[in-house]
Each structure stands twice: as C-alpha cells, then as structure tokens.
C-alpha cells in the first residue's frame, strides 16, 4: 500500500473517530461552538435550517407591514410596529448566528432572493382584514412558539442563544394577537364575523406550520439526535391544537373543522384531514402571495443598494480623513 493511500485511510478513520466523539458530546448535552470541529453534514443542516428560520422572520414582516398604517388605534399601531421590529431583530439574531458557520450574509440573501432557500410557507397567505393581525399573532406566533421553544436547548450554541432571546420576546406577539381577536369577538356582529373569517382562513395553514406528518418528514431522525428537534411534527401539532381549542372557546369562535372532537381516551382532540396538496403547492411557490413577497423583498434590497454603498463610502472617507489628521 502506498504511503498516500495509507494516509487517506488514516484520515477517514480519524474522521470517524471525531464524529463519534462529536455525537457523544451532544448526547452529554454539551454545546457545540463555532470554532469546534463538526461534521460537514451538521454544518450544512444547521446553515439550512437557521437561514430558513432567519428568512422566515424577515419575510414574516411583510404580511403585517401591510396593516401598520391602517391600524385602528394608536395602541394597536405601536404594538404592531414593535412586533414587526422584533421580527427584524429576530431575523438579524439568526443571520448573525448562521454566519458563525462560515456562510456570509450576502450568500444567504442571495439564496433567499433566487428562491434557492425557503421560508415558512405561512407568509405566502394574504392579510386582507385587520382581524388577520389578530389571527396571525394568536395562531401563527402560537405555532411558531411551539416550534421554537425546544430550540432553546439545541446543540449549536449560537442558535440556542439566539432562540432564547427570540422566545422571550415572542410571547408578547401572541398576546397582542389574542387581544385583537378578543376585542373583535366581543364587538359588533360584523366585527365578530371578521374575527371568525380570519380564524377560518388561518387555522389550517397554521396547522401546516408544524411541518409534514411524521411519515413524510425526511429530517426527523438526524434532527432529533442533534437536538434540532425534540418532538415530532405530529406531536407538536397535537400540542398546538390541544392548547388552542380552549382559547377559541374563550373567544366564542368556531374552529373550522367539523371533525374536531375531544377524545376522552387520548386526552386530546381528534381533528380532520389536513390538505397536504395545498401545503406542497405553497412550498413549491404556487401560494397566493409567493411572487408578491419575493418581489417586495428583492425590491427593498435593490432600492436600498445606494444607501448601503453611500454608508460604506462615507465610512471609508471618514477613516481616511482621520488618518490624514494623525499625520
């Protein structure tokens, strides 16, 4: 055997060894930090999931941004503004955490803008009435919280730290949404009808946010090992339904599912079939607003280019001026 061949075998063995140690560290609940050795697949999976998460926060500003100027009162307006600003912040925490894995911010933007990277499909639905602001906060942020809380314990340190900050801020989002729904539900018959209509439109897409059924989910096993996931999609969905149905009762609204029924034996709600064709259609880009969202996002990026360049040119000029003064 040639020395070179031997060297490759050695390194393969070494890699296997490193991988084993790596998995053991995670099993012991140790955190992985940016400069630590990690398997390439771990890096790639995290870049994919974390950047998609960041993109979702950024695109998630668009449906709500639609209503900032039309909020019915100053109280609602400051709350919505603060919520949208939080989402920008969450996107930024997550982008910077993802950058620690060796991908640049611009590469991530490019992946989003070219459609190579996905974002949560829920943001491809339109926000046609004020009640949608309530339904989004209550249901969409509610489902997001269920998805996100387990990530505060995930194995990659920068992701876990970002998620702790995100989760702390997210609960105000859900409460402000529920308050909007409550106000409308206790208002005029037209207002209540508006709230019911929003629930009708957002209920099923919110259930889809918890991801494909376990049978269809491709990443579950590996993700469980790396603590990117603690519970399966179906378990998370059941948790969401069980906690949300009583809240709908408080609102006096009806969940748009004729098969929804308390199952005494399971101690959980049984629910109807989810339209997964719709889910995959939206994922593949054929939702009601996919094109509009990307157009708004790419447009904002392009229209802001001269501002970014001007800021950079100004920074460089100031730097040079300072240097000259020193001489």
């Amino acid at each position: 055997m040639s020395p070179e061949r031997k060297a490759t075998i050695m390194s393969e063995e070494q890699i296997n060894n490193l991988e084993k140690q790596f998995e053991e560290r995670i099993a012991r609940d140790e955190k992985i930090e940016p400069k630590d050795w990690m398997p390439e697949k771990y890096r790639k999976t995290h870049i994919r999931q974390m950047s998609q998460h960041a993109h979702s926060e950024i695109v998630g500003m668009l449906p709500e941004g639609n209503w900032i100027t039309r909020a019915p009162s100053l109280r609602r307006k400051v709350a919505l503004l603060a919520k949208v600003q939080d989402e920008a912040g969450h996107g930024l925490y997550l982008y910077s955490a993802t950058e620690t894995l060796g991908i640049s911010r611009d590469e991530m933007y490019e992946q989003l803008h070219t459609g190579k990277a996905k974002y949560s499909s829920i943001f491809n639905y339109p926000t046609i009435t004020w009640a949608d602001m309530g339904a989004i906060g209550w249901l969409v942020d509610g489902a997001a919280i269920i998805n996100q809380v387990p990530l505060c314990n995930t194995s990659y340190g920068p992701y876990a730290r970002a998620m702790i900050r995100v989760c702390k801020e997210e609960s105000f989002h859900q409460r402000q949404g529920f308050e909007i729904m409550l106000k409308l539900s206790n208002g005029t018959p037209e207002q209540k009808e508006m709230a019911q209509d929003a629930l009708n439109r957002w209920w099923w897409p919110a259930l889809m946010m918890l991801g494909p059924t376990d049978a269809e989910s491709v990443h579950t096993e590996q993700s469980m090992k790396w603590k990117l996931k603690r519970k399966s999609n179906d378990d998370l969905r059941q948790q969401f339904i069980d906690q949300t149905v009583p809240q709908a009762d408080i609102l006096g609204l009806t969940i748009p599912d004729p098969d929804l029924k308390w199952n005494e034996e399971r101690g959980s709600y049984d629910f109807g079939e989810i339209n997964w064709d719709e889910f995959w259609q939206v994922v593949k880009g054929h939702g009601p607003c996919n094109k509009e969202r990307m157009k708004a996002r790419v447009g904002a990026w392009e229209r802001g280019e001269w501002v970014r360049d001007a800021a950079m040119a100004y920074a460089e000029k100031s730097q040079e001026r300072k240097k000259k003064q020193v001489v």
Partner: protein
Amino acid sequence: MSELQLRFQIQIQIHMKKWPLWEVFVRSKNGLEHRHFGSLHAADADMALENARDVYTRRNEGVSIWVVESKNITASNPEHNGEMFEPAQDKVYRHPTFYDLPDEVKHM
C-alpha cells in the same frame, strides 16, 4: 486606463465592499461586566453602536454597549485546547481545599 474606466473601477470596488461584521458586548446594569450579545453588520463604528442599540437592547437590556470589528478579535483554537488549558488541571495546590488545617481553625 482612461479616467472613465478608473472611475468605473472605483465604483465597482465601492460596490463590492460589504458592511463589515461587528461583535456586540452589552453591560446589562452597572456593577456587571459587558457580555457578548451577538454580532451585526454596519458601515462604521457609529452605525454599529446605533444598530446594536436597535437590535440587542429594545427592552432595556443594557446601560452600555461596546462594539468591535470582528476581524480585530484573536481567538484561541479549540483544537489546541489541550496544551492551552490542561496544564491548569493538575495544579490542585491553587485551590484552598488542597491545604490541611485542623478543625479548630475557624474562618480561614
């Protein structure tokens, strides 16, 4: 190279320059140290401070912020953790419990 070409080249260079990455450290209240909060992009230090205010202290998380351009940080390499940190492991005599004292000695 003509003046126009030169100007075009300079423009491209400006265009290619991305906002650098900054690390953000926040003191949450007086009496506590600055702690690493995360990072962000900004054209210069002043903008980095303003962005850090907006991104990391929207809910009174801080009373003081430091920003430092990430490229100016020198970090130890975890692969060298052995030679870096293990020498401290066998120096138990640096801890008070290493020393035997009679029980009668109080408060030491």
